[in-house]
């Protein structure tokens, strides 16, 4: 973590960005598509809302290219809510992120739910004043995003399915890889650094020139990448967890789903389609907040489950035409 400069006022430092994410811990962040839904989310106890035009299950059903939401929609939601407002930019689409920052969004989600804009590189998040949250399916992917400047990580899960299996898969894989890293010897760690760094060089595979070598990535050359990754792995080994706030996302549809992911050590929960695609969104929102706050108390989780009408309909992962978790790397 960077040193605090006591002599001057500074905005957008690593500490301020990661500190924002820390204030979200133990919370539920809800996808909303209208100001009315944002008001309902705030009243239910959401710690932030994700402003977007369509929830992931509709994006999935509609197909086509999914882009950043219209500024008027985002501004309408910003104007009507007092809790933080997040919004999604496409993977690698720095210009969409810049627009969101200019609109006054509190945090950008560089999200696989939208159609990726850059096949080789994610956004250089260090260049922004506002913080970013990024998805991951594994520890290595999380480390790459943190190296790029992400202030918060969420599991990708499989958005818009109401099926929690991928969120659990990603939480378990991250945790298992961290446990392995903590007991790995020097050569094991060196290998992990190399494996994680090599992914930044995917553009080399796209060239038809046999001798082509990428001289430097937007995030440094191989030496700089290795040093940055090594330092993040040191933090992970010390803490026994990712060194930024880590939420679960992608498929959470019931209070029990939320409690399950909290039991997997997640710091909080994103609920996308799960609330406003359920039979009674208000009660679903209340119930998921209750279960997230009291994940450790089975009686409270049971109380939350009993509040529910029908959750959103779920989809089998094997039947999906598009796997959102495979976007990004």
């Amino acid at each position, binding site marked *: 973590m960077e040193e605090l400069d006591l002599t001057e006022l500074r905005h957008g430092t690593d*500490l301020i960005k990661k500190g924002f994410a820390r*204030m*979200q*811990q133990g919370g539920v962040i809800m996808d909303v598509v209208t100001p009315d839904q944002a008001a309902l989310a705030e009243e239910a106890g959401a710690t932030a809302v994700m402003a977007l035009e369509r929830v992931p299950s509709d994006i999935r059903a509609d197909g086509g290219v999914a882009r950043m939401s219209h500024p008027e929609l985002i501004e309408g939601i910003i104007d009507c809510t007092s809790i933080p407002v997040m919004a999604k930019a496409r993977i690698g689409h720095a210009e969409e992120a810049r627009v969101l920052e200019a609109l*006054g969004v509190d945090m950008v989600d560089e999200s696989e739910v939208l159609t990726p804009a850059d096949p080789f590189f994610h956004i250089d998040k260090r260049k922004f004043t506002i913080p970013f949250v990024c998805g991951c399916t594994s520890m290595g992917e999380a480390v790459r995003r943190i190296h790029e400047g992400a202030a918060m990580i969420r599991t990708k899960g499989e958005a818009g399915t109401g099926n929690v299996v991928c969120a659990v898969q990603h939480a378990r894989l991250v945790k298992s890889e961290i446990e392995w890293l903590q007991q790995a010897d020097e050569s094991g760690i060196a290998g992990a650094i190399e494996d994680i760094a090599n992914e930044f060089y995917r553009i080399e595979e796209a060239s038809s020139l046999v001798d082509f070598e990428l001289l430097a990535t937007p995030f440094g050359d191989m030496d700089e990448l290795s040093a940055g990754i090594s330092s993040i792995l040191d933090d992970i080994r010390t803490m*026994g967890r990712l060194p930024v706030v880590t939420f679960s996302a992608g498929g959470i549809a019931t209070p029990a789903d939320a409690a399950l992911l909290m039991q997997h050590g997640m710091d909080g929960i994103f609920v996308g389609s799960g609330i406003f695609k359920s039979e009674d969104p208000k009660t679903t929102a209340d119930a998921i907040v209750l279960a997230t706050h009291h994940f450790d108390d089975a009686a409270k989780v049971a109380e939350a489950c009993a509040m529910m009408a029908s959750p959103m309909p779920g989809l089998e992962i094997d039947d999906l035409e598009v796997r959102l978790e495979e976007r990004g790397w």
Partner: protein
Amino acid sequence: MALNRRVEGRVALRCAMSIRIGLAMLQGARHEHAQAIAGAGEELGVEVEIKVLRTSSDLDGGIDALILPGGESTTMRIASRHQGLLESLYEWMNDDPQRPVLGTCAGAILMCSPPSGPPLLDAEISRNAWGRQAKSFQAPVAVFLDVEVVPPAVTTSVSTDSVHHPLVVSSDGLGDGETFPGVFIRAPRFSSIGTETTVVAEFDGEVVGILQAGRLALTFHPELTSDRRFHRWIISQATIRAAA
């Protein structure tokens, strides 16, 4: 300020029990406060037990001091709806104004504007008054607060819950006599300060921390830095009261 003075060499008060600090687990940066309290306890050589407060019955065993962490104050009010924790905390604070309480950011809002009943501090506060996240900032804050003498003791034990590893906070050397590293995140601002309060922290001529009886409210986040002065303060206050 005397706040930054080391306490070794002073006459020690010895108390038999450890100090129990209640930590409201409603939502937000709770593990950071737990770590800061553990660190401050070690710096002071005081045995501190962190009592995690999730429901009103968690207060049954008694606490010597209370921390209201930062997070989203609206969420905290709603989080309390199902088990009445906030009501019990207000009751605990109202029973004796001298009871040591540290409220940071959202915690300060909960102290200045309770959902019902009288404010716990003679001050008015506005939420998110510096602007949205892009306007969040870090800057030096001038601190005017004394840390009192504290007794030596054994060890510090901290447990928040079984599945969440704490995020480690910066260990950089911070603090420079009268200044404190102020971290303001979508922070509130005091819109008026009554005569009952004492100013304990200022940024650029603006009041950012107040004290009234045992209650300390800060609009910034000392738990996000490794400067433990405010956490040493609350342990000291609790220790002195417990020994009296």
